[in-house]
């Protein structure tokens, strides 16, 4: 305990309760100063977030809600001690809230932030709360102190221009604030002459904190639990094996890897100069694992001499190798137990990672010829566009086609594919792939086409593991196709309508290659027989397959099936390659050019929010169909249910139309429920006063059972509630007695007498130190019941509303 001179603020005769503050006009200034620091912090927080939009909304909501709640609390603080108490509670809540909210987010939903961001968010919210309570002088100073710490941290964390600009503004405004505070303190010091005995706050806080830390250090140091107690307390501090997947940086590599610059000791899916080789499965291995192996020719095996078990394995491997060389895809397969051994040994089961919008179809191989059982590629070299290399922002981009080369192209989309365990020299290609970029690869000969029209690295056997491939693809708007006569069927097209190269190869994509002898045509079995010949007919076929057939991976076509399409149409179920085969054949019979595509389907549910990428696993191999609409434009369609169709780039008008159509459909489907709920809500609203009053009466009856005081108190609350329901709530400056004494006006004598007694007791209960005489308990309860019954909402409205 020491004697100290009161600061000027506490001796100000005009101040309230002697504590108006070192800078009485600084409340708005303080709040503004803290808000600038808060805005700076929000910029940094949003920039560091995985999902900037949601984080920005989250941060804004936090800030607004904290400010509003703090203002509400301040409004309810009658005295400075109350204000200090409420501010303390609010600050504690501000510190705890970000941690609790993040814990809930980690447990129940996606979305989390690094620990240090949460701590700084707590600091920010605490500063805001203190700024709102800055009419209490010490709290205003604390708010400025916290905001300066926040700005200091922000300056060390970012190089963002906006954040630095806001920090500069904060500095200037802070200087102004300090000048004002200084002059005010100087002026007040001239009249400060009182002394007051107080506990030294700073020494107490600092000393207490030091003692606690010393005790903790002693306890932890002597018991040898420091490694456990401090284990990972600061994720970014490093030094332990503990890691936080949400950390922004640290000693370990974590989930977010960075490219090594010097003396790389490890490698990962980042852009670097390292290209390593490893044993990786091919696409064929994965199809065999997923769908089973194609059947072996029986007659050849029957004529061979039995082999030893060790040699059988070798034979199977040779068959698989032969298939790879022949570029076939058999639509007839037999189920075998999936082989996972090789994949389980891998550290990361992913074949590749996709950064960007999902779901996404990534084509790896295309087939144009079908014999009823097996898809093959004819091997004809099409006239592919010349690949040109351009440098953009010091990055080499290989352009595979011209931007906007087709009338259906609209907008661009970017993806990045990280090769993990996939062994191929083909680029996993989204539909309408336009450009490819691989870091450091700036030689044209590294980019080329395969025979079946897939972009690849022709000079390599396979793309090195952990290579990051950046892809640009064009969006498509199908609306022009839906209205136009489409497509140019083989029987209708003329030489002058399309390019020569397309003319030459067009037969490979039509039904003439295998199905011309089948009667009747397959499409006559579908409901699209009479559809007009444009893209809507294609969509009708796709929709028919997606709705009428069932995806069943365990229902392949029999091995002796001569025509898998016929079998599938009969069985109405099957794996995705039968859906794709059937769609391709049906569309060919309708005169469209189609080809089968195998590759990967990046699923939406495999999106890893923390890593910001989608994992593609071996079981994500998929088969779909592409329909040719002009010389170089093939549109992917998805006939298999359960797989989302490739996304269409819509105009705003189309988007609005679809949204309204979907809403209308949803509205019609749920019309009964909506009407029921609406009627219920209307009834509840119309009768709100009745049931709310009934609830209040029930609560009053229950709570009043405890004692006559409780009965009296809850009857007062009932009157208050009814007055609010009646639209004439008691004004804040009126007492219970003053406002409700009007209920006795023009009332029957018994109500006047009861009301008089009730209000006298109410005054005594609320403001007298002695309270109600226990001998009057029965009378009090009786009068309260009588008043509650007599003073209905209508009575209150009649007697009170004209006083408002």
């Amino acid at each position: 305990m020491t004697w100290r001179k009161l600061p000027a603020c506490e001796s100000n005769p005009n101040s309230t309760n002697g504590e108006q503050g070192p800078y009485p006009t600084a409340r708005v200034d303080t709040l503004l100063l803290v808000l600038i620091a808060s805005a700076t912090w929000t910029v940094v927080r949003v920039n560091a977030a995985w999902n900037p939009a949601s984080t920005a909304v989250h941060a804004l909501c936090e800030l607004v809600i904290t400010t509003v709640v703090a203002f509400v609390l301040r409004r309810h603080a009658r005295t400075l001690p109350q204000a200090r108490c409420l501010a303390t509670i609010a600050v504690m809540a501000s510190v705890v809230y970000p941690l609790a909210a993040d814990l809930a987010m980690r447990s129940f939903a996606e979305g989390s932030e690094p620990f240090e961001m949460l701590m700084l968010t707590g600091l920010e919210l605490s500063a805001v709360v203190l700024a709102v309570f800055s009419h209490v002088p010490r709290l205003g100073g604390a708010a400025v102190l916290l905001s300066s710490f926040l700005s200091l941290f922000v300056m060390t964390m970012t190089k963002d221009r906006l954040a630095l600009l806001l920090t500069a503004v904060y500095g200037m405004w802070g200087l102004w604030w300090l000048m004002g505070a200084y002059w005010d303190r100087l002026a007040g010091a001239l009249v400060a002459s009182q002394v007051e005995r107080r506990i030294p706050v700073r020494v107490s806080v600092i000393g207490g904190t030091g003692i606690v830390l010393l005790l903790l250090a002693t306890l932890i140091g002597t018991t040898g639990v420091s490694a456990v107690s401090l284990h990972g307390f600061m994720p970014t501090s490093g030094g332990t094996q503990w890691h936080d997947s949400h950390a922004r940086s640290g000693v370990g590599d974590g989930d977010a890897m960075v490219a090594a610059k010097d003396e790389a000791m490890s490698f990962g899916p980042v852009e670097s100069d390292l290209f390593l080789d490893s044993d990786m499965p091919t696409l064929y291995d994965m199809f065999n694992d997923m769908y089973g192996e194609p059947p072996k020719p029986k007659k050849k095996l029957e004529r061979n001499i039995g082999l030893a078990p060790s040699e059988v394995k070798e034979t199977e491997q040779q068959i698989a190798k032969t298939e790879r060389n022949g570029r076939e895809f058999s639509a007839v397969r037999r189920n075998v137990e999936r082989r996972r051994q090789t994949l389980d040994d891998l550290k990361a089961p992913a074949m590749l990672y996709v950064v960007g919008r999902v779901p996404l179809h990534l084509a790896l191989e295309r087939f144009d010829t079908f014999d009823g059982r097996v898809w093959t590629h004819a091997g004809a070299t099409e006239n592919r566009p010349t690949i040109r290399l351009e440098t953009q922002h010091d990055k080499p981009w290989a352009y595979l086609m011209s931007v906007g080369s087709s009338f259906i192209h609209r907008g661009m989309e970017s993806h990045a594919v990280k090769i993990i365990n996939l062994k191929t020299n083909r680029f996993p290609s989204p539909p309408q792939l336009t450009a490819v970029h691989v870091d450091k690869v700036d030689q044209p000969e590294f980019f080329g086409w395969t025979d079946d029209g897939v972009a690849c690295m022709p000079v390599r056997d396979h793309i090195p593991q952990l290579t990051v491939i950046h892809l640009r693809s064009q969006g498509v708007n199908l609306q022009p196709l839906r209205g136009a006569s489409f497509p140019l069927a083989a029987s209708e097209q003329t030489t002058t309508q399309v390019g020569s190269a397309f003319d030459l190869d067009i037969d490979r994509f039509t039904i003439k290659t295998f199905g011309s002898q089948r009667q009747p045509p397959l499409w006559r079995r579908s409901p699209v027989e009479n559809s007009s010949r444009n893209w809507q007919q294609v969509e009708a076929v796709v929709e028919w397959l997606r709705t009428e057939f069932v995806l069943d991976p365990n229902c392949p076509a029999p091995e002796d099936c001569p025509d898998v399409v016929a079998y599938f149409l009969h069985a109405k179920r099957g794996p995705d390659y039968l859906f794709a085969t059937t769609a391709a054949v049906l569309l060919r019979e309708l005169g469209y050019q189609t080809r089968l595509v195998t590759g990967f389907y990046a699923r939406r549910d495999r999106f890893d929010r923390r890593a910001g990428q989608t994992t593609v696993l071996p079981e994500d191999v998929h088969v779909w169909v592409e329909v040719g609409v002009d010389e170089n434009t093939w549109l992917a369609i998805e006939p298999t249910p359960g797989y989302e169709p490739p996304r269409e780039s819509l105009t705003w008008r189309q988007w609005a139309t679809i949204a309204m159509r979907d809403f209308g459909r949803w509205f019609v489907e749920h019309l009964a429920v909506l009407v029921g709920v609406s009627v219920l809500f209307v009834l509840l609203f119309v009768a709100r006063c009745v049931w709310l009053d009934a609830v209040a009466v029930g609560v009053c009856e229950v709570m009043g059972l405890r004692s006559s005081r409780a009965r009296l108190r809850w009857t007062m609350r009932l009157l208050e509630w009814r007055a609010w329901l009646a639209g004439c709530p008691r004004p804040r400056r009126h007492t219970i007695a003053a406002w409700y004494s009007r209920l006795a006006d023009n009332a029957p004598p018994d109500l006047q007498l009861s009301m008089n007694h009730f209000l006298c007791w109410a005054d005594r209960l609320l403001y007298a130190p002695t309270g109600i005489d226990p001998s009057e308990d029965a009378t009090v309860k009786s009068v309260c019941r009588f008043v509650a019954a007599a003073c209905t909402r209508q009575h209150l409205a009649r007697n009170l509303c004209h006083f408002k």
Partner: protein
Amino acid sequence: MSLPAATPSDQSTAKLRTSSCQHQAAIDGLRRSLQTALIGKNDIVEMVLACLLARGHLLFDDLPGLGKTTLAKAVAGAVGGDFARVQCTPDLLPTDITGFNMFNQKTREFEFRRGPVFSDVLLADEINRATPRTQSALFEAMAERQVTLDGQTHLLSQTFFVIATQNPVESHGAYPLPEAQLDRFAMKLRIGYPDRRSELEMLAANIGVAEGVRRETQPVITPTELRQLQEHVAKVAVTEKVREYLVDLGRATREHKEVTLGLSPRGLITWQRVAQARAHLRGRDFVTPDDIQDVAGPVLEVRLAGDFDSAQKIVQEILASVDVPVFR
């Protein structure tokens, strides 16, 4: 709708209302006496009684001929103590109020000649016509109920009660009371014109009474009884909830944007005392926010200074800015 069987009787109501009032007869006598002197102004009479029981001093700020002097004489007569009147003019000296030491030729000593402040009720008529020097002579007497002259302190009556009047319309040759002296008054009242019925009643009462004939008011209580009553009023309970409300109102006067001089702590104490008296006059032994609100106008109007035309409006704004404590 019928009254329940356990309805409290009138007797219990009376018990509620007068549970702590042991001097109700004296108060009723004072009230009747003042109401007889000032017809049709019962609310003013209640305020005067509250001021008297709270040991405060009263300032009438009103036009001539509205009954200020009549009411002051009635108070003095009803209390039964000494009554003195000072007609304040610019040439009035401080010693004309406090008294002075006069050299006695016979005894060859100075003798103290008491001034009008040595009475139970002092009427300072048109106080704003006295010079500030003379006005300040009342400071010590009003605040501490004593007079110090030539280093010698003379105690005044324990029931010393100042009723001052001032005319707000005649500013020529007047000296406005300083804030320091205004703060020593408990309240400022404006009597205002009586209503039609009261004026008719007044005229009827004056028929047959010759002009200038003095009507004496019979004493109702003695100064000693008044002193006991004042001590009893000072014990009226004020719970913490009500005190907090009072403090919040005081803070609100200082934070009001149009008020340059808010309520002082002395003013806050005076406000509480007057509210206690008001509660006692209503038959209660505890103060409610209603009591505080009822006396807020007279108590604040004499103290608040600022650039405003209507003090009543400011008082209403201050009252409206603070929530009445109910369930908290």
